[in-house]
C-alpha cells in the first residue's frame, strides 16, 4: 500500500508529538489485549488435554457428567477440586492469568467487597466478583461501545452535513432547524425515561445515544462543504461534467474528513464518559455487565472499600487521558501550518 506524500507528512507530524505517539501505542496495546480478555481473565481454562482429546472450554461448553464422568449435568466448574483432580489425572490444562471472568463469584472470601489480596489483585466488588477481571472486560466494553458509537454517528453526521453543505437550499434550511430543535432536548433525562420503558441492552443503549450524538459533526462537515463547494478545483470538476456525487466524494469529502478526524478522539472521550455516567446512574447497560460506571457507583456505595472507587477512577482517567493525548497529536498531524511549512520545494 502506498501513501500520498501528504499522508506521510501527517504521520511524521503525528510521530513528532511524542506524548500523543506513545499514548497511541499504549492504548493500542491495551485495547488489543482487552480484545482477548477471555484468554486473560476467565474461570475456564484456555486449553485442556483430557484423555488424549484437546478441549477448548472458552469456546465450547463441556458438561461435567458427559465429558468428565462426573455427577452434575451442568457445565463443569473448573475451580472445583474434584474436576481439577480428574483433569490432572488424565491430562493437563492451561489456566488464564486471572482465574475469574467478569461474572464469576469468588466464594473463598469471608466478606464482599474483599480488599486486594493475592487471590484478587484489586479486590472484589460487593458481589464478590474480581475487580481486575471486571476492569479488563469493562475497558473493552467501553472502548468498543465508544468506537462503534463514534463510527456510526460519524457516518450519519458526515452524510447529512455533506448533503446540507453541498446542496444548501431548502434541505439545508429544514435540517438545520430540525437539528436546532433536537439540540434542545435534554439527552440525559430522555435516556433515563426511555431506559425505564425498554429493557436496556448494549444495542439499545447504543441506538438511543446515537440519536443524539450524530449532530456533533453535522455543523462541522456542513461548514467544510459550504466552503469547499466554491473552491476552484470543485468548479473545475463541475465544468468537466463530473457527476455531483463523485465531486462530493473525490474533491470535497477529503477536506471535510480532516476536521472529522481531528474531532474523533475527542468524540470517543465523550462517548466513554457518557456511557460511564449512565451506568453510574444505573440507566445504562444491563445489570451484571462489566462497566466502569457501575464500578464507580459501587465505589460510591461502599466508601469503606476505597479500592473500588480508586480503581474505577484510574482506569477511566488513564483511558481518557491517553485518548486526549492522541487527540492532540492528531490535531497536530492535520494542522496545515505544521504540514505545509518547511520541507516543501
Amino acid at each position, binding site marked *: 500500500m502506498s501513501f*500520498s*506524500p*501528504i499522508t506521510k507528512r501527517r504521520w511524521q507530524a503525528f510521530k513528532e508529538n511524542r506524548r500523543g505517539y506513545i499514548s497511541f501505542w499504549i492504548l493500542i496495546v491495551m485495547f488489543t489485549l482487552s480484545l482477548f480478555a477471555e484468554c486473560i481473565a476467565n474461570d475456564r481454562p484456555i486449553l485442556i488435554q483430557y484423555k488424549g482429546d484437546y478441549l477448548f472450554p472458552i469456546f465450547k461448553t463441556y458438561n461435567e457428567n458427559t465429558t468428565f464422568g462426573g455427577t452434575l449435568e451442568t457445565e463443569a466448574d473448573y475451580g472445583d477440586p474434584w474436576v481439577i483432580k480428574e483433569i490432572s489425572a488424565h491430562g493437563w490444562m492451561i489456566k488464564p492469568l486471572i482465574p475469574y471472568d467478569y461474572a464469576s463469584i469468588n466464594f473463598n472470601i469471608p466478606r464482599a467487597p474483599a480488599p486486594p489480596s493475592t487471590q484478587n489483585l484489586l479486590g472484589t466488588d460487593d458481589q464478590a466478583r474480581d475487580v481486575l477481571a471486571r476492569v479488563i472486560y469493562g475497558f473493552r466494553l467501553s472502548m468498543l461501545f465508544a468506537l462503534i458509537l463514534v463510527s456510526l454517528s460519524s457516518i450519519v453526521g458526515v452524510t447529512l452535513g455533506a448533503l446540507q453543505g453541498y446542496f444548501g*437550499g431548502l434541505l439545508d*434550511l429544514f435540517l438545520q432547524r430540525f437539528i436546532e430543535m433536537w439540540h434542545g432536548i435534554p439527552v440525559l433525562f430522555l435516556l433515563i425515561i426511555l431506559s425505564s420503558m425498554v429493557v436496556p441492552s448494549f444495542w439499545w443503549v447504543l441506538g438511543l445515544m446515537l440519536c443524539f450524538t450524530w449532530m456533533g459533526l453535522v455543523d462541522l462537515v456542513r461548514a467544510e462543504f459550504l466552503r469547499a463547494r466554491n*473552491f*476552484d*478545483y470543485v*468548479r*473545475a*470538476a*463541475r*465544468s*468537466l*461534467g*463530473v*457527476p455531483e456525487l*463523485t465531486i462530493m466524494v*473525490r*474533491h470535497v469529502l*477529503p477536506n471535510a474528513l480532516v476536521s472529522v478526524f481531528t474531532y474523533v478522539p475527542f468524540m470517543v472521550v465523550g462517548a466513554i464518559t457518557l456511557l460511564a455516567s449512565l451506568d453510574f446512574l444505573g440507566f445504562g447497560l444491563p445489570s451484571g455487565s462489566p462497566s466502569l460506571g457501575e464500578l464507580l457507583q459501587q465505589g460510591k456505595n461502599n466508601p469503606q472499600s476505597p479500592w473500588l472507587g480508586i480503581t474505577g477512577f484510574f482506569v477511566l482517567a488513564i483511558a481518557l487521558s491517553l485518548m486526549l493525548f492522541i487527540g492532540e497529536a492528531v490535531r497536530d498531524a492535520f494542522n496545515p501550518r505544521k504540514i*505545509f511549512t518547511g520541507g*516543501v520545494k
Partner: protein
Amino acid sequence: MTLLQIKDLHIGFGDGVRYREAVSGVSLTINKGELVALVGESGSGKSLTALSIMRLLAKESRVPKGEIFFNDEALHEASWKRIQELRGNRVGMIFQEPMTALNPLHPIERQLVESYKWHNQTKGVPAQEKIKQLYEAVGLPHFIGRKNLYPHELSGGERQRIMIGMAIANDPDLLIADEPTTALDVTLQVQVLKLLKKLQHERNMGVLLITHDLTVVRKVADRVCVMHEGKIVETGKTEDVFKDPQHDYTKMLLAAMPRGEGVPIPRPATDVLRTEGISVRYPIKSAVFRRTIGHVTAVENLPLFIRSGETVGIVGESGSGKSSLGYGVLRLLPAEGEVVFLGNRIDDLSTKALRPMRKDMQLVFQDPYASLNPRMTVRDIIAEGLEVHHPELSRIEVERQVDAMLERVGLTGGMKARYPHEFSGGQRQRIAIARAMILKPKLVVLDEPTSALDMSVQGQVLDLLKDLQASHQVAYILISHDLRVVKAMAHYIFVLKKGQVMEQGKTEEIFQNPQHEYTKSLMHAAFGDSL
C-alpha cells in the same frame, strides 16, 4: 546625498546544515528625494530586503551578515528602542493588502494619526490639524470632519490612500512601499502612483518601491534594481535599463511582457457560441424564508458571438461582472438569455442534459494554486475529464493521452505521479490547461489565466494558449483586467464596467481609436510611459 545604504546583506532561514539563504549579498543605495524600484519575481527576496531595513523580519529568519546605514546611522547596530523610534517616524511603510491593513473597529481618523501621536506626544501641531493636513495630502479632502468614518465604508483605492497618509504622517525621510498597487485595479493604480510621486517631490522623500510590475516601474522609478534569486543582478537608471538591459535575466523579463497579436482566424470558421444577450443576476434572499426579494445584476444583456479559433476578450476591473459572465456562459451560474452552443440551445437544458456537452466547454482559472486538488496526482487531475466522458477508453489509452497532453503543454510524462505542490505556479497553470484541453473542447473560458503568475512565465503561458488555439481551432473567451494580455490574444473586445458594455469592437480598432473615456484610461494605464 545618500539616504539609505545597504551593504552586502544576507538573510536566510534555518540553522546549521538546514540554513537556506534567501537574500545573498544585496547592496543598494537610495538618495534623498529619489524613487528606487526593487523589481523581482515572487521568492526573489525583495520583500525580505525591505523588511530587514526596519527589522520587521519573521522570528525564524537569520541575518548573518550585512550593514544598513540610514542617514549615516548604523541601523544594524542600533538598539530596539532606537529602531522603534524610527519606525513610522523617519521611515514610513505601506503594504500590499489595503483590505486587511486597517483595523475595522477603529474610525479612520484615529488610525490616521496614531503614529503621529505616538511619536509627537508633546510637540507638533494638534491632532485635528494633522488629520486635516493628511487628508488633503492624500487627496481625500471630503473626509475632513467625518469623525465616524470606518474602514468598511472605503474602497480599496481610498484605503490605500489612508495607508499612505499614515505612513507620511511624521514626514518621513524614507518611504518603503511593498507592492502598494498590486491589489488595486489599473485605473486606481495610476492614481495611487501619481499620489506617491507627488508626495516624493513635495517632501523630497526617498522611496523604495517594491514591485513585480515592470509597467509600474517604467512609469515612476528614477532608478531600478532588478533582483533575482536573492541577488541584485542589475542596477541603473530606469530608461537605461529598459532601453538597454545588460543582464540576461533583465532581458528575459522585458522580453516576457505579453506581446504579439491574436492567432489568425482560419477560414471557414464554424459558429461556436452565439447569444443575443446574456444576463447574470445574483438573487438577494430574505433572511428567514429565503424568498428572492431582488437581484444584483452582474452582467446585463451582453451579446456574444464566437467562431472557432477566435478569441473574444472581456476587459474590466474587479466587480465589472466579467468573471460572472464566464461562469454564466458555461452555466456554472444561472444565466438568462438564449444561448446557442454548437447549434444547440443550452440555456434551457437541465444539469443532467448539459453534462455530455461539458466536454466541449472548459474553464481555466486564475489561481493555479487553488484550481488543482492538492490530494490528487497530476495524472488523476488530467485524466478525470477523460474518465467521465470517455469511459470506454482503456487504461493504457488514457495513460497515453495524458502523456501526450503533458508533452503538449511543455511538461513530461514522468511528472504524472507527482502532486501539485511539487510544481511552480507556471507549471501548475500548464497542468490546468492540460486538464481543460485533453477533452479537445470547442470553447474554453480563460479567467485571468496569467494574472497570478510571475511575469517571466506570463508570456510563456500566453504563447502556449495561442499555440493550442492554432492547432485545435479552439475558441477562447479571455477574461482579463490586463489590456496587454488581451491585446496579445484577442480578436474582438468587450470593455465592461459594472455589468454594462462600455465599448466593443475589433481589437485593432479599439486599440487604435478608443472611443470611450473609460477605455482610454485603461489603455493609458496599461501602455502609457508616464502617469
